[in-house]
């Protein structure tokens, strides 16, 4: 079980209201990602759920029971930290066994669970090393191993991949996703990287300045962002925003169109190419469109478009997002 409910949870540090009030339902077995720019309160929210910070107001329910005042250890959750937080003076085996030892399990039971977790995470060969002798990816696996053996009702991940290099991050991302499919345990994952959010989540919670901007599946957020913030945050490269006459033509204050929803070759928009990045599979083209401004376009791979060319662009009419004065989506 791992069903978590937040009811009007608030957190203030003195005069600063980091979380002004959050309501959220997390179902059992879900992979939920909290995503937002740095300083948006996503880590604080995770720490509130973990019990590492006290809530200023509101209620946290875990599996239907009020856990607001419970100490971290009694909430039945496990957490994986960005800095791994391994005990440097203990071997990998002792690190993983530590929560079990604290729970009072016998040596034999500890060994059985540690070996099982090590097998899942490919750590068997490293059990007698110390964290200092491991690479970043291995350390993170040990941290996950320490979380797994506790058989928690939910896993909390606090930017676990930020300290890894790009290639390793992709591998670990897949490993965590596979782990979720095997264990079928609730996971809450905090990141500032929208790619991680899109690829891993069942449900994304977009946070900004301590408020929830939108909650939904990755494709929901991609297809129908509720407001400018979510529209701009989800998707890479970023959505183009256009104000003024062109927006007024669509009866909106601002319109947004994703770079991948603009056709190249024909169309009503004409402009000069400022920059063209050829990635092989895609080309990212920055165009100064006459009367509209700078528009980013994601086009097919092997296009012969270069700096200074004049090209015509055709936005896909069905994929234009309209926003009102306050930045809310018009549907």
């Amino acid at each position, binding site marked *: 079980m791992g069903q978590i409910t937040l009811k009007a949870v608030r957190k203030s540090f003195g005069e600063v209201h980091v979380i002004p009030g959050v309501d959220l339902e997390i179902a059992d077995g879900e992979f939920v990602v909290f995503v937002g720019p740095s300083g948006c309160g996503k880590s604080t929210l995770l*720490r509130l759920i973990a019990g*590492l910070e006290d809530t200023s107001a509101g209620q946290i329910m875990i599996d239907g029971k009020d856990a607001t005042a419970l100490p971290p250890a009694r909430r039945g*959750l496990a957490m994986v930290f960005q800095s791994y*937080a391994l*005990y440097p003076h203990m071997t990998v085996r002792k690190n993983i066994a530590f929560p079990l030892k604290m729970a009072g399990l016998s040596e034999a039971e500890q060994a059985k669970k540690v070996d099982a977790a090590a097998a899942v995470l490919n750590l068997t060969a490293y059990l007698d090393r110390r964290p200092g002798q491991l690479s970043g990816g291995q350390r993170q696996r040990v941290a996950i191993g320490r979380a797994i053996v506790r058989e928690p009702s939910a896993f909390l991940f606090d930017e676990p991949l930020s300290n890894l290099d790009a290639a390793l991050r992709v591998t670990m991302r897949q490993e965590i996703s596979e782990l979720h499919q095997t264990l079928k345990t609730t996971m809450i994952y905090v990141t500032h990287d929208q790619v991680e959010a899109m690829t891993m989540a069942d449900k994304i919670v977009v946070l900004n300045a301590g408020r929830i901007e939108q909650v939904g599946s990755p494709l929901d957020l991609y297809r129908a962002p509720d407001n400018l913030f979510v529209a701009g945050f989800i998707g890479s490269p970023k959505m183009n925003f256009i104000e003024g006459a062109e927006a007024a033509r669509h009866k909106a204050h601002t319109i947004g169109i994703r770079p991948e929803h603009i056709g190249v070759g024909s169309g009503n928009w004409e402009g000069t190419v400022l920059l063209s990045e050829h990635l092989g599979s895609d080309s990212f083209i920055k165009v100064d469109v006459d009367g509209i401004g700078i528009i980013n376009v994601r086009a097919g791979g092997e296009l012969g478009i270069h700096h200074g060319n004049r090209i015509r662009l055709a936005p896909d009419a069905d994929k234009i997002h309209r926003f009102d004065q306050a930045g809310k989506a018009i549907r």
Partner: protein
Amino acid sequence: MSSARTSLGRTVAAHAVLIAYTVIALFPVFVILINSLKTRKAIFGDPLALPLGKSFDLVGYQTVMKQGDFVLYFQNSMTVTVASLFFVLLFGAMAAFALSEYRFRGNTLMGLYLALGIMIPIRLGTVAILEMMVASGLVNTLTALILVYTAQGLPLSVFILSEFMKSVSNDLKNAGRIDGLSEYAIFFRLVLPLVRPAMATVAVFTMIPIWNDLWFPLILASAEQTKTVTLGAQVFIGQFQNDWNALLAALSLAIVPVLVLYLIFSRQLIRGITVGAVK
């Protein structure tokens, strides 16, 4: 043998400086050691000569063994030093942990108050301390010395250890909390092992002044039963004549236990001093 990072000239110069400093530092100890093994006449005749042939004499050590109860004095010094060290490290680390880990009103003020003890010598309070010890009937007990030395060592210990404890990662302590450790377990099982080098540093800086102190044993515990080594050695200093052989022998012997303690801590100590610098 010259490579990118070493040159013969520089190596020689560096070693010359280090050796010169070592000689200067060890010279007084050396003089004490050689003279403790000489006859009285030889000590005054040629203080820097080695104890060879006729000048060699163990009379100093024989006097020390016969006169007074030096085994007891050593025991007293050891008891006082080790017990004070234990309390300084325990209470110092606990206070440092509270100051570095918990946010509470007056935290900074409390830290400053504790650090004030580094600047004000405890001997200024000797009269008051003596009155207190008389009132509580602790005069001529080792307890009195242990209490005073614990108080003397705490400020530096709290100051150094709280700086080190701030450097222990918060995530690590939080991981411990989630794993079900109590605050005491976090302190004893996570934080203390990680600040061990700092503890060794504090131990050495605390231990040496306590072992060498003459002032408080003289005032608070001058009875035969509670004499420390430094105080015991004073019997050889007379009003008109000093027994140099015995005095030097006693001092030489007094170096040994503190040297052993130092060697125990020193491997940790070097890590403690350099840990922040080379990270």
